[in-house]
C-alpha cells in the first residue's frame, strides 16, 4: 500500500518537474512549496548556519531554474534535489575547512539576531546535534527535520534500511545520553559528576 502511494507520488513529482522544465511557473511553485522547507532544513542542520543554508538552497533553486535551458528528465525530484543540496553542503563544508578561521566560525555560528533566546537545555541539544558525526546527523536531520521515512533515506543514501535505522538510533541515543547526563548533573548537583556531562561540557567550551 505504502509502495503504491510512494510510486504514485513519484510519478506526480516527476510530471511536475517536467512541467516546470517546459516553462510552467506554477509547477515550479509547486516544487518549491513541496521541497524548499525540507531542503532548507537539511542544509541548515548540515552546515549549522542559517544564512549559509539559505544561500545554498537559493543556489540550488537557481541551478534548477537554469535547468530549463538544458532540460533533463528527472524521475525522482525529491531524491534529485536532496542530492543537489547534499553536494552543495559538502562542497561548502570542504571549502570552509580549508579557509575558515575559528573566529569566523564562532561569529557565523552564533548569530545575535535570533528572536528566540534558547535555554541552556536547548543550547545543549543544539550543540549535541551539531557535534554528531556527519552520517548520523544527516540521517537524523532527514528523518526528524525533513520528514523523510527511513526507507526514503535508505534509497537516498544508497544504504540498507537496517543501517539507516541503526544510524538514526545511535544519533538519538548519543544526544539522549548528553541530555540525560545534563539532567543528572542538574538533579544531583556536584555530588556525582557524570563523566558524559563532563565530556560534553569540556567539548562545548572549546
Amino acid at each position: 500500500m505504502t509502495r503504491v502511494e510512494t510510486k504514485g507520488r513519484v510519478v506526480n513529482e516527476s510530471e511536475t518537474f517536467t512541467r516546470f522544465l517546459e516553462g510552467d511557473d506554477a509547477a515550479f511553485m509547486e516544487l518549491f512549496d513541496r521541497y524548499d522547507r525540507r531542503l532548507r532544513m537539511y542544509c541548515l542542520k548540515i552546515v549549522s548556519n542559517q544564512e549559509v543554508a539559505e544561500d545554498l538552497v537559493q543556489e540550488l533553486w537557481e541551478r534548477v531554474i537554469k535547468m530549463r535551458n538544458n532540460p533533463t528528465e528527472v524521475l525522482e525530484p525529491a531524491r534529485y534535489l536532496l542530492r543537489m543540496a547534499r553536494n552543495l553542503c559538502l562542497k561548502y563544508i570542504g571549502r570552509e575547512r580549508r579557509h575558515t578561521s575559528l573566529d569566523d566560525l564562532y561569529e557565523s555560528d552564533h548569530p545575535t539576531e535570533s528572536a528566540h533566546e534558547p535555554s541552556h537545555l536547548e543550547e545543549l541539544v543544539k550543540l549535541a546535534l551539531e557535534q554528531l558525526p556527519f552520517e548520523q546527523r544527516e540521517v537524523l536531520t532527514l528523518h526528524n527535520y525533513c520528514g523523510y521515512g527511513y526507507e526514503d533515506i535508505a534509497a537516498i543514501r544508497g544504504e540498507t534500511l537496517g543501517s539507516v535505522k541503526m544510524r538514526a538510533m545511535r544519533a538519538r541515543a548519543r544526544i539522549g545520553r548528553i541530555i540525560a547526563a545534563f539532567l543528572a548533573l542538574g538533579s544531583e548537583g556536584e555530588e556525582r559528576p557524570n563523566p558524559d556531562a563532563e565530556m560534553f561540557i569540556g567539548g562545548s567550551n572549546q
Partner: protein
Amino acid sequence: MNQIEREELVERYLAGEMSQAQEADFFLNVAVDGDLQRTLKAFQVMDRFIQGDREHTAAETGRYRQRIMGILAATPGAAIGTVAGTAAGSSSGAGAAGAAGTGAASGASTVGAAAAGGFLKTVVAVVVGGSLVGGTALVINHYQAPEPVRVVAPATESPRILPPTISAPPAAAAPAAAAPAATAPTTGAPAGTPSQVPAADGAGPEGQAAASGDVNGIAQHRPHRANVRSGSAHQATAASGHTRPTQPVKLGTTNTSTPMRVTVDDSKANGKK
C-alpha cells in the same frame, strides 16, 4: 537492564510500537528505574526541541520565498530554452539565456516568455527579442536596412502562444484588408507549429518596443504588427522556397528604409492593380 536496552525501550515507546500491556510494563519500569526515567525524559526533551526547532526554522519562509521568486522572474533563461526547444526546427542555437545571435526561434521564445510569465518576464523577453531581431541573415539580405533596429526579423512567433486578442485593430485592419493576397496566407496559417511556420510572423514589434524602451508597446505597435506580418511573410515564404508571387519581394526591396510602410504601400499597390 543496560543503557542500550533502556534506549531501545524508550524509542519503542515514543514510536508508539508498544502494545498496551508492554506500555504498562514500561511505566512500571520507569517508576522503579531512575536511569530509565532520565532516559525517557532526555528523549522527550530532544523530540520537543527538534519539533520547536523545526517550527522556528519554518517561520523564515516568507522573506526567503520572495528572494527565490525574484530569481525565477529575473532569470533570463527561464522559459526561453524550453520554448526554443519546442521550436527547435528553426532554432539555430542553444536557448542559452537569449544570448545574441539566436535566430528564428527568438520570436517564439519572446512571445512564449511574455505569455508565460509576469511583468518582469515580459520585460526580459522583450529585451531578449529585441536583441535578437537583427540576428537573421535572411532579413538583412532582403531588406538591407541601414538601421538594424528597424529591420524586421523573420523570427517565428509561436501561433499557439499568441493570445487571440493580438490581432490587427480596426485602424490597421483597413490597410491589411486592402492587401488580402499579402495577409491571408500569413494569418491563415497560425495553426501550424513553429517549425511548420519557420520564419514568418515577425517579432518586430516586440523588438522595436524593446529598442524604444516601451515595455507595454505591443498595443501601440499593433497597427504596424499587422503590416509587418504581411511583409515578413512575403520575405519568409520567399526564403523558404514556397511558391509565392514575386511582387511583394520586389516591392519590399525597393523601399528599404521602413519595411513596415513598404509593405503597406505594396499592398495598396496590389489593390490598385
